[in-house]
């Protein structure tokens, strides 16, 4: 061997051995890395395998168009329309809560708060993301639901004031600004103030009337779509905030400086340059947040009321609803697990729907984020 030490060319055997070892070690690494691919395939296969018998037995129409959900009836009925609507309703509610709040918070984190404060707010987001869903569900059931049931009207009217007063005042000012634009300069300020004051007064009157109506709303049960929507909205917040903030940051300092240097205000820079540039990332953030809401089980199981009925009217957030996830979680206990029956398979059919929704939403967000990275990458 000693003579070989200065020789850079390995012997044939040694080289083959080395290559073989490299090949096998790399192959091994690849096989392990492919575990997630295998897992995804297995999940799809196994969920579908137990879902298909249901479709074979009962077809598609009943599940997606029927509203009678009596899996343990005789004969059983599997109309899951109300369940799909329930899932849709709480997701819509969660979007209404989380999207405006999340995007505004992301803007604050990326552009408005000073650095120190930003660092202080980050842990808040991390904690919100880390709290177990059963803790959220417990809160919704044990604390929020009784509150809603006993003081629902007052809570609603308080929320109406909190949301609509600032928004309405803003709109009042904007409208009066625009309306008085073409008026002579010497009377314009007076006219503007007059108009703004009138509008504000109208707004306050309107809100007072609204809150009087809301105060009398009787919440018959605190476990309802409204409750769940708010909690799901809060749960979706961290995802939306962090992904949206990332993409706002990714728009870069150069763009911001370019806009500021032209005399744009911060709001103008954000709305005309930064948000359009980061737009697709924000959409992806919303998709991911929505997925969190659709896929959540414990909160809806505990606090949505679990009534498989179509709310009347459909947007009645105060009625109890039932969702896909809660149905799966709740009915599996009663379904015959081992032998397999329609009751067992229908839950897999619902799970398959859930899986497909999440699958496509995920692909969409992935595609959007990747496209944005490429586009912003081209910028630099």
């Amino acid at each position, binding site marked *: 061997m000693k003579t070989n030490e200065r020789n850079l060319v390995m012997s044939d055997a040694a080289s083959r051995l080395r290559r073989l070892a*490299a090949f096998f*070690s*790399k192959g091994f*690494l*690849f096989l*392990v890395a492919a*575990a*997630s*691919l295998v*897992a*995804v395939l*297995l*999940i799809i296969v*196994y969920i579908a*395998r137990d879902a298909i018998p249901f479709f074979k037995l009962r077809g598609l129409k009943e599940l997606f168009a029927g509203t009678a959900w009596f899996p343990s009836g005789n004969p059983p009925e599997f109309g899951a329309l109300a369940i799909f609507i329930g899932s849709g309703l709480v997701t819509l509610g969660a979007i209404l809560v989380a999207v405006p709040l*999340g995007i*505004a*918070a992301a803007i604050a984190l990326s552009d*408005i708060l000073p650095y120190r404060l930003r660092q202080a*707010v980050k*842990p*808040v987001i*991390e*904690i*919100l993301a*880390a*709290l*177990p869903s*059963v*803790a959220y569900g*417990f809160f919704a059931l*044990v*604390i929020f639901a009784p509150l809603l049931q006993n003081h629902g009207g007052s809570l609603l009217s308080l929320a109406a004031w909190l949301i609509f007063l600032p928004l309405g005042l*803003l709109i009042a*000012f904007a409208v009066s*600004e625009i309306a008085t634009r073409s008026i002579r300069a010497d009377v314009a300020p007076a006219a503007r103030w007059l108009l703004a004051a009138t509008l504000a007064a109208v707004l306050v009157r309107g809100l007072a009337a609204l809150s009087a109506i809301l105060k009398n709303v*009787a919440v018959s049960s605190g476990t309802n779509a409204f409750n769940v929507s708010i909690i799901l909205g*809060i749960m979706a*917040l961290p995802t939306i*905030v962090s992904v949206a903030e990332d993409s706002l940051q990714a728009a870069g300092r150069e763009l911001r400086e370019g806009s500021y240097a032209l005399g744009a205000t*911060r*709001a*103008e820079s954000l709305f005309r340059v930064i948000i359009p540039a980061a737009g697709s990332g924000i959409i992806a953030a919303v998709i991911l947040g929505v*997925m969190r809401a659709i*896929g*959540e*089980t*414990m909160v809806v199981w*505990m606090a949505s009321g679990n009534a498989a009925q179509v709310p009347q009217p459909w947007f009645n957030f105060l009625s109890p609803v039932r969702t896909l*996830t809660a149905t799966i*979680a709740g009915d*599996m206990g009663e379904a015959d*697990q*081992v032998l397999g029956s329609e009751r067992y398979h229908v839950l*897999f059919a619902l*799970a398959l729907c*859930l899986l497909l929704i*999440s699958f496509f939403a*995920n692909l969409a967000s*992935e595609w959007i984020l990747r496209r944005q990275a490429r586009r912003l990458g081209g910028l630099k």
Partner: protein
Amino acid sequence: MKLRSRRLLDRSLTGVSVMAIVLMSLSLLVLLGPIFSRGAAAFLFRATSEFRRFNLEQFNRGDSRRIAAESRAVAEARQPLYGMLAAFTAELEDMDPARRRELRQQFKEVRDLLRELLGPLPGEMDAVMLRQQYGQTRWDRARVTLQRILFSEQWDYSDPSRMGRKVLVPRRQAFAGTQLEPLFPHLQQNLKSMLQPRFTFYWRFLSDRSLDSHFFGGIWPEILGTFYLTLGAMLLAIPFGVIAAIYLSEFAAAGRLVSLLRVCISTLAGVPSIVFGLFGLAFFINTLHLSHSKSVLAGSATLALLILPTIIRAAEEALKSVPHAYKEAALSLGASPLRMVLTVLLPAALPGILTGVIISMGRAAGETAPIIFTAAVSVGRPLKLWETLNQPTPALPWNIYNLATEHQAVDQIRHVQFGMVLTLVLLVLLLNLAAIVIRARISRKMRG
């Protein structure tokens, strides 16, 4: 547009976004506030003499002589009360039948409530259920029961246009003029000496088994179950996750296959947790027969799948942030790539990987949906290590759900539920805190 209105818009944006941050932080406070304050009451509360008697008799805990002395004092304090009960029982016999019928029912209610408050009344047979052998162990619960003794709830339907209203009627009124009437003020004034409430720090709430389905005792089986499940999930997921991350960050050439892998990882991350649960049932239990039915092993395997993407991503991030110079230095010294990974890359990336691992540990500990069908049961004893292969277990997240929704006396064991939630939340928060600390360390090291 006028400059003034442009500024107004700018300010309102600032206002709105700051308001969003404030709302977000507030919602966290509102969420954690009750969990912490009421959860703490599971550990720190005013325990009554019944609590100490229970601990002595069931767990053989405490100074038996002092507790015996206390029992005597308590019995003495209760004596007049029991006397009144006996006197009224006798009085009841002599009443005219109509009044007797009316009062007997009410008297039974009072006796039941007193039994709930103070434990078995004198001369009664030993009850079977543990909860009937002891009175209220907690002063806060005792106060609630006291209220129910003093006032009976009735519904007022006099206004037909509205829903019925709850009104509280003093029970004393019903017994006016009888021997039982003085019982109510007497009980109210002397309850303290009958139960001797004392501040107690019950840390063994964490390590006691539960007795009589959580009416007494602690949450040890749940904690242990969560520990097993989390540990199992980590043991299964960490090797796969870290190796996959090494492959992706060091050995994978960019190509179709790798981007397919990445898509799969993010798909896996997006699968709803309940679907994981169903999959675990269909695959690990019904197909692979890891165990006959639910078991910790099956639950751990399901949880491992759930946290795999998190670990891969965190580990890949950590591996990528190791400076190129390190790797090149190792390679230039003649180390093979695999050796470089083991001796240079992994140690350098370890803190970052650890952060990801810790965070996913919190996730695994708190997830409920995946273990519903694969591992969790409502009532169970602490498992031995080998039993985890084929036995199901109680676990914190599942039992929080179960106790809050399906328990027969949901309202009476609120403190246990809150205590469990607090334990789980604290566990997750501590794990996250550890991750934050490690991350801060890393960034400090990178800077200086």
